[in-house]
């Protein structure tokens, strides 16, 4: 436990000190994007990795978070710090609202229902022009402003570093929460459902409630990320939340090793910044990206941090000691 805490501590310190050593705004932007991916991967990991529900419409929750904050800001004038958590809450509720009907189906059918949900949400945001601005999206969403002692009010504006710190801190806090959650009663029940749903139900695990809880938590985390994304960009369009995004996040979770939290974070950081590293190849970069996905899975079928066991989370956990 202590070694792990140390590892996370070192990672956190490195992440927070990075801008002081490398204040290049472009690099920070790339890392901010990668960190947003990490946040999404953490959320989807709860649904796919821990609970074993294959979800192909995760970008919808990200979109709902972004649009909730955008609309609250534009119509009600809510600043970021006030609108952030409600955005996450709305996303989480949508997770439950989707889950109630969708969780009646399983496996690949669930995958396709969630895929349908993702498409419906995106097309709805595109077509409901009177509220969402249609294909042009929402414009002029306020950037966050923060009062810092000694600095006065800091407007995040279009600078890179404040968003970087915001995303890194949120990701670290979420990762910490996910680790604690995965060792909790709820987390162990999720893993039990993933490994054998019928056995879990027989042991008295309230399967449906817990699946809904996973959807709610995963949705809320995507909502957190979505609101940050909206605040950073200032403009959001439905195109940013397409199926490719859902698939990218899913690949990160699988490449990291299903259920592994550091795996999800690290593979999100790698895959999230890979397109930028490949920018030198410009038009070949998505081609190489697809190729690297195939190669990584072929070289490490269990994912970067998966261990091939049934419940890797439990192996070095407090209960297994």
């Amino acid at each position, binding site marked *: 436990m202590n070694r792990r805490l140390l590892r996370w501590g070192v990672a956190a310190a490195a992440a927070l000190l990075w801008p002081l050593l490398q204040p290049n705004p472009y690099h920070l932007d790339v890392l901010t994007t990668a960190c947003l991916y990490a946040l999404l991967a953490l959320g989807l990991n709860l649904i*796919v990795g821990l609970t*074993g*529900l*294959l979800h192909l419409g995760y970008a919808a929750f990200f979109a709902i978070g972004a649009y909730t904050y955008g609309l609250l800001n534009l119509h009600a004038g809510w600043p970021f710090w006030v609108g952030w958590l409600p955005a996450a809450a709305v996303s989480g509720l949508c997770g439950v609202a989707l889950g109630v*009907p*969708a969780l*009646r*189906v*399983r*496996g*690949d*059918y*669930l*995958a*396709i*229902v969630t*895929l*349908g*949900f993702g*498409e*419906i949400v995106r*097309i*709805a945001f595109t*077509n409901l022009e009177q509220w969402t601005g249609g294909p042009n999206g929402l414009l002029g969403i306020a950037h966050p402003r923060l009062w810092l002692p000694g600095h006065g009010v800091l407007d995040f504006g279009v600078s890179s570093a404040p968003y970087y710190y915001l995303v890194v801190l949120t990701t670290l806090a979420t990762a910490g929460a996910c680790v604690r959650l995965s060792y909790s009663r709820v987390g162990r029940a999720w893993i039990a459902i*993933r490994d054998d749903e019928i056995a879990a139900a027989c042991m008295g695990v309230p399967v449906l409630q817990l699946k809904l809880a996973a959807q709610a938590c995963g949705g809320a985390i995507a909502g957190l990320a979505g609101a940050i994304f909206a605040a950073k960009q200032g403009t959001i369009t439905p195109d940013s939340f397409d*199926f490719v995004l859902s*698939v990218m996040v*899913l*690949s990160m979770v*699988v*490449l990291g090793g*299903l259920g592994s939290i550091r795996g999800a974070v690290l593979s999100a950081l790698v895959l999230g910044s890979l397109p930028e590293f490949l920018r030198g190849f410009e*038009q*070949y970069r*998505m*081609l190489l*990206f*697809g*190729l*690297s*996905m*195939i190669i990584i*899975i*072929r070289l490490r*079928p*269990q994912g970067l941090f998966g261990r091939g066991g049934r419940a890797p989370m439990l192996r070095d956990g407090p209960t297994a000691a």
Partner: protein
Amino acid sequence: MTPLQLFLQQLANGLTLGAIYALIALGYTMVYGVIQLINFAHGEIFVLGAYAALTVVLTLGGTGVSWGVLLAACAVAAMGWCAVIGVAIERVAYRPLRGAPRLNPFITAIGMSFFLQNAIMLVYGATDRQFPNPLPLLRWETGGVTITLMQVLVWVSSAALMVGLQWLVMATRLGKAMRATAQDLTACALLGLPVNRIIAVTFAIGSALAAIGGLLFGLSYGTINFHDGYLIGLKAFTAAVLGGIGNIPGAMIGGLVLGLLEGLGAGYLSAQWKNVFAFVVLVLILLCKPTGLLGERVAERA
């Protein structure tokens, strides 16, 4: 146009689209039936087929061959090319992962889809390509409904292919081997069936059907773009699930139902929302009958 004529016209349009969806859906459903994999690269195979056919049309178009020969050449070239690519994809991206956790080949399938889509873009360019139609512009008016030769060609050829496939799967030794592999791959291997070859043949047939889908799509709609495979592949997959994935008649019915829904939905409700109807109906059908229209098996895996 009277309401009835409008309805029949939308029906005809929907049927054309549905037949193309059905051809592509067959590839999804066959592969799923045999190795329980959602072959995400299948939409790209469809586009590849369309571009292969386009290449043939552009090469042979000016040489004065009759349109029948030209179409046959297109069909043969597209089917052959896509069958080869389909088998190659299976060999490179799926076979090494057989026996790995189920999500892994799914991820390589996604990687393959990205790879192919971008390869197609690099080869053929990122803009819409015109797809010249060598067919004579024949059309028939019956009771105020216009039916083109193109639509008849789509209906007849897809019906013939579906009947042929059904015959192949139900009445030949190869089909029996495919069905056996779908039921229990390990047992088949133990009994000495060349399962790898059977799976490869399944990919080849599925890809060849998608190639015909691509040819018919290009001819019917007149343009093709490298990212068409994404939405059409998604719809075809939806059609396969709608009919009950793994079930061949199900994929045909699912494709037709989806095409009709889209045609009628676009005609009567709103063209903007037509993609939503497809998914809403899909979700509703799955919620009422979670295994699709014709599916019997309950998928227990996640």
